[in-house]
């Protein structure tokens, strides 16, 4: 066999798709040809890497829902009308909608937890602020080139919130802009990152005495967290949103 002939069947060879004779021919060629062997080694290495890729199992609730839909439809299988088909689709659409809202709610809680945990951690650490300034025109440009989005850094002094500074942070695997504002002795953290589909667009909650409010501004997700009272945080959120 020539190198060219080997090249055309090299994948079939590795995938066990050649018959015994062809396989033996390729193997003989490989014994004597370092260049073709190199191609085989590259492909084998690639295959090892590919087998480490994530395998995405179906979400268990979805599997259950499909199984259930299947069962209930088997029971009235003889009713083969368009209405039955339409009902099937409706049931299916319903489960997906339901599922997504469950997931969205879980993800929202998880994110709120993470945001509050970061708030507490950062306040206790020495790296709370990477750019210290009460001037929005110092803080905002600092983020330039460090993020692939531009967080709003409004001056909220007139509303009673003083800008302290900002830093880059990571929350739940995302890179976020963290802004720190102050009201009296209370610190307010604002975390900003590009919005993704799975979190409720806006919501508020109170966990362990911390208040958290988040909303979507354009294509950015904004999370504010503090131990100030909830009315103050609501005011802060309103002022922040209005400043855009």
């Amino acid at each position, binding site marked *: 066999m020539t190198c060219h002939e080997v090249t055309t069947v090299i994948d079939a060879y590795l995938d066990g798709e050649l018959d015994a004779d062809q396989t033996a021919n390729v193997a003989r060629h490989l014994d004597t040809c370092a260049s073709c062997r190199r191609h085989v080694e590259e*492909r084998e290495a690639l295959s090892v890497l*590919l087998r480490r890729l994530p395998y995405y199992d179906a979400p268990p609730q979805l599997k259950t829902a499909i199984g259930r839909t299947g069962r209930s439809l088997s029971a009235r299988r003889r009713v083969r009308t368009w209405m039955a088909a339409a009902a099937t689709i409706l049931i299916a659409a319903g489960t997906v909608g339901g599922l997504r809202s469950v997931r969205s709610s879980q993800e929202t809680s998880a994110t709120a937890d993470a945001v509050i945990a970061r708030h507490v951690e950062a306040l206790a650490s020495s790296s709370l602020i990477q750019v210290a300034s009460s001037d929005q025109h110092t803080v905002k440009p600092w983020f330039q080139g460090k993020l692939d989005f531009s967080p709003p850094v409004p001056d909220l002094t007139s509303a009673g919130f003083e800008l302290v500074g900002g830093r880059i942070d990571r929350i739940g695997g995302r*890179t976020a802009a963290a802004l720190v504002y102050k009201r009296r002795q209370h610190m307010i953290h604002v975390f900003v990152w590009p919005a993704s*589909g799975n979190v409720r667009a806006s919501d508020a909650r109170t966990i362990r005495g911390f208040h958290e409010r988040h909303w979507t501004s354009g294509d950015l997700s904004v999370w504010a967290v503090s131990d100030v009272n909830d009315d103050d945080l609501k005011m802060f959120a309103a002022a922040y949103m209005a400043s855009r």
Partner: protein
Amino acid sequence: MSQHTFETVVVPHLDAAHNYARWLTRNDADAEDVLQDAAVRAFRFFSSLRADNPRAWLFTIVRNTWYARVAQREARPHVTEYDEMADPRPNHHPDPEAQLLRQQTVDRVRRAVESLPLDFREVIVLRELEGLSYKEIAEVIGAPIGTVMSRLSRARERLIDLLGPAALPGEVR
């Protein structure tokens, strides 16, 4: 084997179908929608299933569901997406942690696979992750075995190029 019901024949392959859908769509929400729609279709066509290979049959339905959506969503030719070589998610994390993460092999390989055109991506997934034979892949994608072989070969070449031919064997050791 006494009972060929939807539950005993199709439901066991839902994980594989979801995995395939996830690699086709590259996101969770679309993958779930596709699996859901495909399951509905699978049920409707269940009586026409010749029971020899329900997994490949389900893959075909998943694939048709997604291709139909892509065609509907974007009025562009739905077989190849050669313009997709760029990583769909921008990845300009400035901090060292993100850079470290980015360098991690699995992530790199995943992104390389996700950057492949749809028709290359699916043969890689069907062969390397699902272990289908060329004949089964041909059945799923509705193409001759020769096409499967050449597509797979080109997809692998592309991945080796993307991941760096020199780096590949070293990374495995």
